[in-house]
């Protein structure tokens, strides 16, 4: 009976942070609900193995991470093909001079995230990335850039993680350049 009460209070307290995290990582509300439901089902099944050494939310978040990884692995089983020809020519040199554009960032970037419009633009740019790249990118930053851990969890090689990060960042730079820095 005690187990049921504890679980009930967890559902009450932690559904919101878990759903928000899942919706953020997966960029999909319905998938987030499914996955958090799985988290609670797993928590119910493995409740006895929770020893109270960590906070309940930490434990639930760890389960969520594992579920996200399962989701990712199932969806993307083959090796990713990451092409850079949009950015570099056949010798590996930059295709154009856009990268030299001035972002006029001196002391300004600390305030960028306080700017509602900038956040919206950033959001759009991130969401434009294919989920195959944006899930690792988000997990990389959520897990404080522990590349080893992220690549193990998602079962991608670290080399591929570097390529995914590189490709995502090249695109983010271009997107923010086009939609923010050269507009404002």
């Amino acid at each position, binding site marked *: 009976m005690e187990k*049921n*009460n504890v*679980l*009930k209070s967890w*559902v*009450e307290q932690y*559904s*919101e942070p878990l*759903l*928000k995290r899942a*919706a*953020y990582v997966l960029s999909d*509300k319905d998938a*987030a*609900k499914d996955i*958090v*439901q799985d988290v*609670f*089902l797993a928590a*119910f099944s493995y409740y006895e193995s929770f020893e109270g050494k960590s906070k309940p939310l930490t434990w639930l978040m760890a389960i969520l991470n594992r579920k996200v990884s399962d989701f990712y692995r199932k969806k993307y089983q083959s090796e990713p093909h990451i092409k*850079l020809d949009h*950015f*570099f020519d056949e*010798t*590996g*040199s*930059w295709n154009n*001079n856009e*990268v*030299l554009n001035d*972002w006029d*960032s001196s002391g300004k*970037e600390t305030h*960028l*995230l306080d700017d509602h419009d900038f*956040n919206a633009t*950033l959001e759009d740019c991130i969401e434009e990335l294919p989920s195959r790249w944006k899930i690792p*990118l*988000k997990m990389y*930053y*959520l897990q404080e*850039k522990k*590349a*080893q851990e992220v690549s193990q969890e998602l079962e991608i090689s*670290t080399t591929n993680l*570097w*390529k995914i*990060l*590189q490709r995502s*960042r*090249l695109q*983010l*730079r271009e997107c*923010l350049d086009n939609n923010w820095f050269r507009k404002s």
Partner: protein
Amino acid sequence: MLRKFIHLLFLPCSEATLLMEKQNAETISKKESRRLILHLKICKWCRAYQQKLKILDDILKRRCSDKKENTINSSDIQDFKNKIVERLDL
């Protein structure tokens, strides 16, 4: 043309930008680091990119530690809670 030759000889920009990711995560080897530094000395494009990489890194770091704005509304969350409680028969 000379620039392209030099870049190819030392390290093409397409690879230098990959090494920057490793450098950013502090997992770059000494050998890679030396190659990258040399490349950056002669390549103003990659120097410019590196600055922007740092800005992007800072933005992404701070953004992901921030609580995200409402992606799921409260009535959805309530429905979800009810469903789970029922499902688990709590």
